[in-house]
């Protein structure tokens, strides 16, 4: 299981929990399981998210491995100028 930190305004979809657990070994599984378990998060996932894994930010790479002890934080999709 991976612990995922959820930002404040999405916590309405996680019954107020700031952190949820899903069974995922990589980024794709993480997003799929999150959307399955917490349908309220799905619209934001569709709008775009980034995921911070151990402090580094990932946007798209499905097969980025997520270790057991990894720190995982859901973020709105990062853009730049």
């Amino acid at each position, binding site marked *: 299981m991976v612990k995922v930190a959820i930002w*404040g305004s999405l916590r309405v979809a996680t019954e107020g929990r700031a952190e949820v657990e899903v069974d995922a070994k990589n980024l794709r599984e993480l997003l799929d399981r999150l959307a399955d378990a917490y349908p309220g998060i799905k*619209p934001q996932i569709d709008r775009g998210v980034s995921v911070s894994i*151990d*402090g*580094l930010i990932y946007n798209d790479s499905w097969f980025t491995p997520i270790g057991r002890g990894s720190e995982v934080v859901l973020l709105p999709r*990062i853009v730049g100028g």
Partner: protein
Amino acid sequence: MALDDKHEADGRVFKVVGTRPVRPDGIDKVTGRARFGADMSMPGMLVGWVLRSPHAHAQIRSIDTSKAEALPGVKAVVTRKDFTAESDDVLDNCMAGAKALYDGHAVAAVAAVSAKVAKQALKLIAVDYEVLPHVTDVDEAMKLDAPVLHKDKTDETVPAGMSKNVIQRFEYGHGDVEAGFAEADEIVSRSFKTAATHQGYIEPHACVASMGPDGQADLWVCTQGHYMVRNVCAPMLGMDIGKLRVTASEIGGGFGGKTTVFLEPVALMLSRKSGRPVKMVMTREDVLRATGPTASTSIDVKIGMKKDGTITAGWAEMRYQGGAYPGSPVQFGAMAAFAPYNLKHVKTIGWDVVTNRPKQAAYRAPGAPMGAYVVESVIDELCGNLGLDRLSVRLKNASTEGAKASYGPRFGKIGLTATLEAAKAHPHYSAPLGPSQGRGISCGFWFNFGGDTSVSLSVNNDGTISLSEGNPDIGGSRASMTMMAAEELGIPYDSVRTIIADTSALGQNEVTDGSRVTFAVGLATIKAARDAITKMCSRAAKVWGIDEDAVIWEDGHAKPAGPNAGKFPPMSLAEIAAQASNTGGPIAGHHEVNAEGAGVSFATHMCDAEVDPETGAVKILRYTVFQDAGKAVHPAYVEGQFQGGAVQGIGWALNEEYIYGKDGRLQNPGFLDYRVPVASDLPMIDTVIIEVPNPGHPYGVRGVGETSIVPPLAAVANAVSAAAGVRLTELPMSPPRVLKAIDTARA
């Protein structure tokens, strides 16, 4: 810099990286030969002009183009009806649908044989507008009785009962801010406003589109991302992506403002309808009225501090209007505002709001400068109230490796402390100040990212290298790529020529944004060079008749790996290249990657300002940037990014602003009254490059392009507030505002 684990590049002696060679496009750019967006012409070319709404908000009842179409010399007229693709905000922004949503919103376009005829034709287009009430201020737009722009764009995060102009709510943080404030010895709460500013690139948007009756098209355009232009425009035109080839011209500045499309789909449509190439070039007025400024904001912030300087809690509520469509960068403001500080209790709330202004476009670290401005202003005030040294307090609270960022994750290796220590040790910090002068400090943070990148590197028969990448070069990146390829291959800088390939030549490339190019394209370039090296080693092995594993690459030569591999003289890249046909054919390396995991970036800025207490005029006396670059590939262009970002920030702080009249029309759509800094406004901008290698890049490179605009708003505001003797809470700090603040404080 002490590091726990070794970086690949540690101890590596670079030969090319870290030097300051002349950029490959340099001669073209100092002789006038470089071709920018508007410098292209094609045989039989028409010119396209856009009709824009004079109203801030209006229903478009009908558009009658018949008289324009009948004018001799007019070859095509386009309105939204010509675009049959599914509507989205980007298309609607390029050509208004049911409503014109801001002053300057495109409503029709004409292609004609000359600009004169086209402009005449625009006057013949009759648009029947039903003018609607408008709103341009973010706080006004949030009121329940405000005119509503869209009925159905609010998302599920917005509580019921708010104005429909409120699109999305964000919340970040951790801990319990109320508990944190209870521990504080001093609390400061303030409200701030910042005006919308424009990226202000000197080159207006321009493109030339040419579409044939077979549906294939070419587009020449100044953009930060020609692959993006292709991917966005093709579906708007109902085309296959592969049928649209986009070539990036030289680009005259972007800063985020050229990360989307405005004219491009319209030019393609005009070309399709007229059957001729069509050139479109914006006027400066068009640029300011209808392309991406950044958000204006209204922010409340509250920070608590102990007498020893420990920040006990930070809270901010941020309201950003991003123009007529969803997508202000408020979430990045809310994420980045407190990122430099390791806080137990922190909370930020962000509201994305729409108003009758042009759709915002990314502007260098989008959303972050305003967040840093309010937080760093209040920290400065707290330091003043408690009599604490402003740099020491920042050092005491600075985020370091392992600190939990206010937006969630724990930081890896970061260089904030190094920038603060460099600032403290710098002579600027201890230099004396005169009367009516003040010094301001600010830290700043930006995420950076990587993204899809494709690079191809050909080994030519004579041993030179042709390097193709797909990211428009805005600030010298071709030089950096050339350097990294030369470094990796072990050959001179002059043996490599780097070009920006068109969209048919390479795989997908993300836009030149997010401070990604030196990081991501650099990474792909190094990997492409390594790919070529592997192939060259294998050719040498064949010639020598040894195992390819027994060949290594050193200083531009294939060499037997050791005495057991056999005694062969090193074979140079040029020798291998010359024999390529005989040893298996052409040699090329390539690399395609989604370069994820870019390292975040921090900076500390220091500014001295003098205020004329009788007029409110501000003079910037001295300015120093301290920023972590990971590894500076071409230090002169790294310094250039630091200096340019600082000066854009100074402009934002002092004089740049979008001014709307009561009629909702932009009052200053020109460089006369949209006041970007001029040479005589400024001192030299000193720079200190800190290098804390980024573990995610083979040479340790971090993006540097954006972070430099994050601290200056607060650095300048803190300097001006110190010099004026009163806290300034509204940007820009134009002379009337500064004078009024001084007079109010004295009264």
